[in-house]
């Protein structure tokens, strides 16, 4: 249960660079891997003017790919998410291993039908005749002052869909390893990049490595309470754990890493030892990954618990624009500390 998923290297990369390296290494390994999306190179079709890779992606995660692999395998698309996501799914079911990039998860509405009704269901509906090795890269996270249509963290929607897998890396090491697994996986996987993590650095092995899908990891062992973090919220949990340590409280921090499958067993095992649970989730609170984990622990770990399972999440509102409002919206260390104190001291 206490599998250590941690890097054994001193080489540092940014989260953004780790994603880029994973894509490059998989494209080098497998000629069937292609990537398509809006602005992934930028300035498409202007090679005659000496323009290639004008942008390298809206967040520079795909920089340098087109020079390495050419425009056959690195395809800028028109602004037509339904068409190119559906095309990637069709290509996945006929022998390629495509990656498609949806610039922000908020835009999923325009292509959700292809994900929900084709990618997720084809294998089942067709009686197992087809594999859909399709990776959807997309972005989550508030805190950029970009307001409600560029800031959501709606991974819970995907966790809800049978047939879809999803991962939520919180650091460069897991970003690379989970993306390599996502690309190699024979099922549709959504890879959620948190926008605020792009400049973060951390140790990343140079050689390709795969972190298994569906596994959580303990990033800080502890005995007094279990804090489960999802994506960037794992860093908030670690920050809270550090402060609690100063107060003599020993929190265990679990990095969920995967929102489908969900590693319920690791969380239950942790709660069996700590007797208390707080799930910290930047997504909204209803029908969410956080509420699902709390429900599973209440259902299967009722006897372990000394206090009700708790969530610290965004409120049931869209993401607001103005800084103070956005600040209130995003779960932070203070909110986590408040809930932990309440659980440990009864108020």
């Amino acid at each position, binding site marked *: 249960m206490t599998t250590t998923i941690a890097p054994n290297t001193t080489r540092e990369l940014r989260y953004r660079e780790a994603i880029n390296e994973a894509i490059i290494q998989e494209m080098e390994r497998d000629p069937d891997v*292609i990537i398509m999306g809006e602005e992934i190179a930028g300035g498409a079709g202007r090679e005659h003017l000496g323009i290639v890779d004008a942008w390298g992606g809206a967040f520079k995660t795909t920089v340098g790919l087109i020079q390495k692999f050419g425009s*056959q*395998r690195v*395809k800028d*698309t*028109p602004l*037509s998410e*339904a*068409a*190119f*996501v*559906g*095309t*990637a*799914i*069709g*290509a*996945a*079911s*006929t*022998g*390629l291993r*495509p990656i498609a990039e949806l610039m922000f998860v908020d835009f999923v509405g325009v292509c959700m*039908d*292809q994900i929900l*009704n*084709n990618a997720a269901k*084809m*294998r*089942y*509906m*067709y*009686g*197992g*005749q*087809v*594999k859909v090795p399709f990776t959807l890269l997309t972005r989550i996270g508030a805190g950029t002052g970009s307001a409600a249509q560029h800031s959501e963290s709606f991974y819970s929607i995907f966790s809800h869909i*049978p*047939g879809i*897998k999803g991962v939520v890396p919180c650091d460069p090491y897991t970003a690379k390893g989970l993306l390599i697994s996502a690309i190699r*996986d*024979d*099922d549709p996987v959504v890879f959620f990049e948190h926008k605020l993590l792009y400049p973060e650095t951390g140790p990343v092995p140079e050689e390709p490595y795969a972190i298994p899908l*569906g596994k959580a990891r303990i990033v800080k062992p502890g005995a007094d309470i279990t804090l489960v973090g999802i994506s960037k919220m794992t860093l908030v949990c670690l920050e809270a754990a550090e402060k609690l340590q100063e107060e003599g409280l020993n929190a265990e921090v679990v990095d969920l890493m995967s929102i*489908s*499958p*969900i590693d*319920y067993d690791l969380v239950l095992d942790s709660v069996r030892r700590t007797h208390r649970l707080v799930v910290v989730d930047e997504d909204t609170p209803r029908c969410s990954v956080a509420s*699902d984990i709390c*429900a*599973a622990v209440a*259902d299967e770990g009722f006897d372990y618990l000394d206090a009700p399972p708790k969530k610290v999440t965004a409120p049931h509102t869209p993401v607001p624009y103005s800084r103070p409002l956005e600040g209130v919206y995003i779960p932070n260390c203070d909110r986590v500390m408040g809930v932990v104190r309440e659980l440990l001291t009864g108020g």
Partner: protein
Amino acid sequence: MDMDPQALISLYRTMVTIRNFEEIGIYEMGQRRLSGSVHSSAGQEAVPTGICAHLTDSDSIASTHRGHGHCIAKGVDPKLMMAELFGRVTGTNKGKGGSMHIADMTKGMLGTNGVVAASVPLAVGAALTSSIKGTGQVSVAFFGDGGANQGVLHESMNLASVWKLPVLFVCENNQYAESTPVEYALSAENVADRGVGYNMPGVLVDGMDVFAVHEAAGAAVQRARSGQGPTLLECKTYRYYGHTVFDNPRSYRTEEEETYWRGRDPIQLFRTRTLEEGLLQASLLDSIDAEIEQLIRDAIKFADESPLPPEDDVYTDVYVEYPLDGLRRGASMTI
């Protein structure tokens, strides 16, 4: 007519198979009170028949909710299709899909589809695979006059044209989206007129005349295979029955109109022309009719005698790999 007798017979067999599958099969399903929406394509046989005659098993098609004809024309075994409609484990999809999801990847049949126009980008994706791998296959996206107004179709036509992919967009304009007449819902006079907006040929075809469809499709497939990009074909046709097997089409269309279109029946038009031109013998066509009727009755017998899926099949093939526990957890399942 530059088709050899074998090719002509093949067209006829396909059309008669579709007609019998739709008329006998669906009637028998009704008799057995089998569930679900089933959409008959009787009347529209010339379209998939004329198009798919140009394709091999390695070419792909993506189909619609009214897709039995596409499956048969692409070579899917009617016996396995019937078993699928009857929910049997011997069906094309092991009883997991039913009429609106019939697929046979070994025949390049990427699935009938229950969401209007949703399968269109799948055909574009198959064309992309062919284009990147350089294997020369073409693909066909079938859709109806209802699907003609879906955004994903328009995005897909634009994308396929920008990337010059080897794909045919084939509109089966059967005059109605459920009960809504095409002249009400379509802003243009013809779906084919919209080809110009995507810089591809938009070809209007008599969808009741299998020879006309065959000729137009031949040019479009040739264009696709030679790397010149996609074509939009609009085949004007007619469905003889309701939207599903449950509705009465007389609630929205006239007897006069139905009589007109039945007067242009694709199977009868084929017979008249081939017999008048002395290309085939009536006795041969009659024997094919009898043979196909028996084939469909055998398919029904096969479906009837086939086992239903075991209950724990509910968990299979959701993913290639996933913990079983993750499918059952929290659901209080009994198996």
